[in-house]
């Protein structure tokens, strides 16, 4: 599955999209996916907030993610 990264999260990971093949087993809950990503990229855990978007909507930690979903990591937003 492909995960999209934006803003400071993109700088931390080093690219805008990362393919995860075997490292993560799907389906997985949003909270567990976030924990996996923080384990892989510890600097993500130092951000003041980190949300996950599931198919372009903010997701809660108990939602389930399948390999077909579009996932994006949302670091603290700063528009406007």
């Amino acid at each position, binding site marked *: 599955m492909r995960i999209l990264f*934006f803003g400071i999260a993109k700088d931390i990971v080093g690219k805008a999209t990362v393919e995860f093949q075997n490292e993560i087993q799907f389906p997985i809950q949003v909270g567990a996916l976030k924990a996996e990503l923080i384990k892989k990229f510890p600097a993500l855990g130092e*951000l*003041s907030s980190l949300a996950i*978007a599931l198919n*372009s*909507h903010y997701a809660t930690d108990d939602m389930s993610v399948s390999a077909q979903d579009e996932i994006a990591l949302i*670091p*603290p937003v*700063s528009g406007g």
Partner: protein
Amino acid sequence: MDINIKIVSEIDTTIGYHYLAHEESGGHSIFIGSVRNSTQNETVHELFFEAYESMALLEMEKIAKEASQKWNLQKVIMHHAVGTKKVKEPIVLVGASSAHREACFEACRFLIDTLKERVPIWKKEFFENKKVWVTPHP
């Protein structure tokens, strides 16, 4: 209620009234955000904005609909720029029209405050010798 939501490379500041005008509206409130030349006493040269566009559009639409549930509005406009913006250039335009001014004033403030809290857009500040993504400190 009609809504007009866009992510654009250039904000057209002249279209606010043109879009918001409605025969039932007597008030129109528009907020325009622009690039300021300093942040915490440091000189800012330019800003760069990046958006998760599909989600930003959906989130702005949700905010516009929430505003229309809180206040009786005829129209809502929300435009945000992406890319590099120099000092004094506009970066965001939001506005609402309503029968009387109270509703559009309050709705306009809600639109920009909520956009800043929720819409997935990120700002990078370019200073003399460094560039940083703006992130609120815990």
